[in-house]
Every structure is written in C-alpha cells, then in structure tokens.
C-alpha cells in the first residue's frame, strides 16, 4: 500500500529513464550499411582463458589487412574500420556484443569469433542481424553442415578437411596403438571420430579416447590413463594453454619419451614453440598455413607482420588475414558494401590470397584451400614446421555436406 507506492513509482521512473537513455544514445547511430561510407567490421575475439593469446593474434591478422587496404585509399574508396570488441567465451556474451556492434555501431561484418559453439549460436542470429560472419578458427564440421548459415563464411579448413589431409600419412607414422585426448567440444568430438575412422582405415588401433573440458589445467588423470592403456602413439586435440599444459605434464610423467608418435591437432603451433620446449621436436601437427608459402602476397604479408609485431605469423593471424581478403574480394566484386550484395558476390568467387588461389564454394560457404601435415624440426632460428604432406581441396572436401542448406 503506502510503502509499495514509492517503490512502484520509483521503479517505473527508473525503468523509463534507463530506456530513454538507451534509445537516446542509439538514435545517433545509423544502421550502417547503406549511407555510411566506412566499412565497419566488428571483431569479437576471446580475451580471457586458454584462448586469449589466439584472440589477440586474430585481431593482428585483421589489422594488417585493414592497414594495407586503407593505405591504398580503401576498397573502391570505402575506408575500413575495425571495431575491436572482446568476449569471455560465454556464448551469451558474444551474442550480446555482436548485437550491440551491429545494431548500435553499424557493423555489417563480424570476425575473430573463435570457438565453434560461439559460431553455431551466432550463425543462427546472422539472418536477423543482417550481417555477415567470417569464421577463421571454428573448425567444427557442423558449421558447414547442419549449422551452416547463408550469412556465414567458413575461411578456415574444417576438421574433416584436415584429417583427410593427414589420413594418408597415418599409415606411415610409427605406432600402432593410439590414444586420443581431445577437448570436450563438438570440434574435439568430431576430430576424434574422424581420426578414429582414418586410423582404422590405415590399419591402426585406437585404444583410448578421452575428452577434457576447455581450460583443463591438470591433465594428470588423463595422462595416467593413456599410459595404462598401453598406447604407443597419441592424437591430441588440445588448444592454446591447454595444449601447453598437456605437453608439459606429459613430459613430467615421462609419457612423451615412451611414445613413438605424437600427432597434435590444432595443438602445436609456432607461437607455442618456446613454451613447449625442445620435447616437441618430432611432433606432427596439422598445418593450415605454410608461413614459407611461395607467393608474392604471402611474402608481403609475412614481412609486414614480422615488421609490425616482431615475430612471424602463424595460422591464427594468417587465417584471419585470409578472412579479410575474402571480405574485401567480395566487396570488390559486388561493388557495394551492403552485406546482402557482398554475400551474393562471394558465392563461387575465386581470388588470389596468401594461401594461393582459393574459391568460396557456394553450396556451403567453405573456402576451398589446401591443408598440410607438418612435423616440428629443429631449425637455425629455433623450431619450425617441415611440411611433410599437402592435400588439395578436391581430396579433402570433394563436395559440400548435404546437411547444409540455405
């Protein structure tokens, strides 16, 4: 009664004023794509946890591409602006940040989102947002399968593409009893499943399969289980800092010495070499990007990146750079910065990139590009990847998955 009244009145007043604040600040922004001449790209990398380093490097890839393009006066006269956001990896946060960037700041394009679950949720919203997403790290096959979206473009290779690339080499890797330790996400599960079939086809045996949640820091139980399974080779799908923890602890348990082969999947990459130490020499890992790739665009990219950031690029910034190349190629072809027109222009588009000539497949929006298998070898300036096998997209992804329909 009397005590409810002021509370009610106050609540109503507060709510209305907050809403007024909200709508007032938004009325100054426009919806972005049509009237503004700037191309706005929202980058939403992870800023915390095991993948934080990758988040920073993803942004670097975009930055180099944008600096290059702006130095030339923009694309068809449109300058490019990066809206650098961040997320803690919780999909709800990523979606909120994306919605805000699109609705309030006029971003027409989204990049640097990292994990497959975030992409799955984002894909579902893209139509409603009217924006395009460029996925340069979420490798789960479902993202070009039943979770595909017309507004989403898959720049990085999918897990099955990579596994198909290394399938042929499994037979020649020493070790017959394989243990799998993978991250407990859809990507980890699909990688494990595909590896198992490829290994069986090569005549190998899979004796143990385990999944560890992302941000696992204690791999003791997993390692002990691998040891007691009698495995002599390991297929490990652990990302970022989890990969570092896994490798270090495997050394501490003397597991590494007892294995004939360690095949990392998205685990071992150049920036982690110092942290991983000399024990990883001889490790195999899928390589999505060959830093020594012999084409002009790549050489320019590598030298610009090394000059600006002090170290050579690896697959994360490189794939994000390719994402930028894809977007710019689409804008160029469409002769417009309207997301819908860019989307249509990208279907079937072939263009030159730092990874060679690539094509954006219209059926599932997968970028067709080669995949590699590398081995860590001791080089002059430290450890480096030696490419031991290459596979072209006609082998790794001969056709789009039927589950994908726009």
């Amino acid at each position, binding site marked *: *009664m009397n*005590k*409810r009244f*002021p*509370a*009610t009145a*106050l*609540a*109503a007043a*507060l*709510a209305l004023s*907050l*809403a007024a604040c*909200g*709508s007032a600040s*938004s*009325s100054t922004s426009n919806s972005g794509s049509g009237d503004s001449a700037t191309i706005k790209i929202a980058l939403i990398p992870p*800023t*915390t946890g095991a993948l934080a380093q990758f988040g920073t490097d993803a942004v670097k890839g975009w930055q180099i591409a944008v600096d290059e393009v702006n130095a030339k006066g923009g694309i068809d006269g449109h300058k490019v602006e990066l809206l650098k956001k*961040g997320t*803690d990896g*919780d*999909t*709800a946060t990523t*979606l*909120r940040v994306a*919605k*805000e960037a699109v*609705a*309030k700041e006029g971003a027409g394009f989204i990049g640097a989102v990292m994990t*497959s*679950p975030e992409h*799955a*949720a984002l894909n*579902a*919203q893209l*139509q*409603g947002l009217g924006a395009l997403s460029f996925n340069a790290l979420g490798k789960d096959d479902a993202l070009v399968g039943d*979770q595909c979206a017309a507004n989403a473009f898959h720049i990085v290779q999918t897990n099955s593409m990579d596994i198909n690339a290394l399938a042929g080499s499994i037979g020649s890797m020493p070790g017959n009893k394989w243990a799998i330790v993978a991250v*407990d*996400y*859809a990507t980890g*599960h699909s990688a494990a499943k595909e590896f198992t079939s490829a290994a069986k086809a090569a005549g190998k045996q899979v004796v143990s399969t385990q*999944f560890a*949640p*992302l941000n696992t820091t204690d791999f003791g139980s997993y390692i002990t289980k691998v040891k007691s399974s009698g495995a002599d080779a390991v297929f490990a799908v652990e990302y970022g800092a989890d990969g570092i923890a896994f490798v270090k602890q495997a050394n501490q348990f003397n597991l590494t010495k007892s294995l004939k082969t360690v095949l990392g999947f998205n685990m071992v990459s150049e920036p982690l070499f110092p942290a991983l130490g000399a024990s990883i020499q001889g490790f195999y890992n899928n390589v999505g990007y060959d830093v020594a790739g012999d084409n002009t665009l790549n050489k320019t990219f590598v030298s610009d990146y090394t000059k600006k950031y002090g170290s050579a690029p690896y697959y994360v910034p490189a794939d994000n750079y390719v994402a930028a190349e894809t977007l710019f190629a689409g804008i160029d072809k469409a002769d417009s910065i309207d997301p819908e027109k860019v989307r249509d222009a990208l279907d079937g588009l072939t263009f030159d990139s730092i990874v060679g000539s690539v094509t954006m497949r219209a059926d599932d929006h997968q970028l067709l590009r080669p995949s590699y298998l590398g081995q860590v070898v001791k080089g002059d300036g430290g450890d480096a990847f030696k490419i031991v096998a290459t596979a072209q997209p006609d082998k790794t992804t001969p056709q789009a998955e039927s589950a994908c329909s726009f």
Partner: protein
Amino acid sequence: MTATTLPEVSQSNAEVPAGRRSRRGLVFGLTVAVVVAAVGYAVPYVIKDTYTMSLAVEAALLGLLALGIGFLARHLGLISLGHTSFFGGAAYAVGVGVNHYGWSMTQSFAFGVLVGTALSLVMGVLVVRASGMGFLMLTLALSQALYQLCVQTSFRPLTGAYDGLLISFRPDDTFAGVNASDLQNPGLFWPIVWIVLIVCVVAVWLLGRSPFGTILEGVRENEERMRFSNYNTFRPRLAAFVLSGLVASLGGALFALNGAYVSPDILGFSRAGDSLIAAMVGGLGSLIGPLLGTGLYVWGEAHLNTGGNLHLYTGIALIVVLVFLPGGVTGTLQRIWRRLRKERPGMGGRR
C-alpha cells in the same frame, strides 16, 4: 528477527500486520498492475532500437528468476543460490522437447515449465528442512550438481554438453501467435514476456496477502512455535519453494524460446551468484526489489562491462548493500520515505 536470515527480510511486512490488509489495498494494487501492464505494452513503440529492446527482454526474463528468489526470501527468509537450475533446467527442457522429441513450441514450453517445476519439487524436498547457511549451501551444491550433469559427455546428445544446445524451431511453428523467427525479435517477443511477468508479480503479491502468506510468515518468524501450534511446516515451505521454482521456470522456458540457444553457463555458479546479488541489491524485502535489481544488473552488464569488470561492480554493490544499505535500493528508499513521513507535523506517526 531470526538470526539465520537478513534483517530486512523479517521487517518487510512488519509495517502492515496480516489482519489489517484491506480490500482497499487489493483494489489499489490490482489497478496499479493493470496500468503498468498497459504502459508496458507501449514500450516497443517508444524504444525503437533493437539492442535496447533486447536488454529490456533480458531484464524481464531474468526478472522472473529474481522474482522467484525474492518470493522465497521475503516470505520464508530463505536465501537461495539454486534457482538458476530451474530457470536453466526449463530452458534446456524446451530445447530437448523441440530437438529431441520434435514437439511444437507451445508443447515444449509447457514441457519446459513442467520440468523446471519438477526440479524445484525434487530440490525442495531435499532442502526446505534446512535454513540459513545450510539452506544456501544445499541449494548451491544441488544446482552445481545439475550443471555438472548437464556438461557430461554422456549427456551430449541431449544437452550438447559444453557446446550448449542450439534449438531448431520449425519455421512455421508459432507460440502465442508469434512465429519462430519473430520470437527472436525482442520487440515482438516483449508483449509475451511482459504479460507473464505482470501476471506472476500479481500472483506472488496476492499469495503474500493470502492466508497462505500468513502461514509462511509464521514459519519464517518462529518455526518451532508454528509446529507446536499444529501447523505442518514442511508442506507450506515446500509449496512456497515449488512456487518460486515455477516462476523461475516460466522465465527459463521463455528465455529458450527467445534465444533459441541454451548455454550451460546459465546453470553455473557465476550466474547463480549474479541472480542472487541482483535480487539483493534491488531489495529482498519488497515485491519489486528483485525486479529493480535485475534491471540495474542488465543495465550494468551492458554499460559497465568494459574489459569484463562487471563482477567487480557487483561485488562492490553486494558489500555496500549488506554493510551499509540493508534492504537494497528499495529498502533504503522505504526508510527515507518513512523518515520523511515521520517528520511531517500532525502525522501521528506509525509505530
């Protein structure tokens, strides 16, 4: 003042003793509800911006969660960290209904609310005999157990484990007259969640004024004496717990319909803490306190979260409220209001 709960909770109804709640108050309250409902309907026409509208929808959905927490705290003096499991459980159930069983949105919504309420029944049976810190720990433990179960690999086909559950609604399916893709548009979803919120607020308010509410107060103040007076204290407590769980489940089921995606984080420790803090900062002693607190929380999440600092502010807000401003925002305002009224000459003062 019971030593096992917060002081403002005990004081919340001290001003208006049970017998004096008049018909005038009832009519006044219902009129306010109708007016507020009507005003709320107009909100999407005032706020054209989708982003702000989505914040409003989020606040309303989480408001249902906070309303449940607040109801329990206000009438039984029990502070719960477990209500996110009903909210999240209902959301997951909606997803399971659509994805796994192929049901329509309306059927899945009903299923979601049912599952959430059933969870609250199960949890309630285990926890309502406890009070104070024991109750808090139990609700926390049980809700975290549910979270752990949800992310288990063995449940992956059902819940999506760590990836969360992407809900694929049939495009031609409708819920309350709105079709699947429009449900994700906050402006079009708003009327649904607003009506549900107002109805729940009124229902909770009426329950508080009813004889049931009086029994709950008696249990809160002195459980032993109630038992000696031949009242079965277990059943009213369980009923109150389940009702608060029902309200939270409504929020969760609607949340799933609107977002089409359920992440396991919704069942996690962090969210449970946030929902409680939001309700407390708003004020557990009043009906709308938790709603106000949730509004502040959503606003803070959107505007103060630069660099992920939201929890810094919620932590500070919690301590400030506990130490200096018991009763949260609404409690403090009520105190100021009362002091102002007392100072007016000729006002005969309340005791």
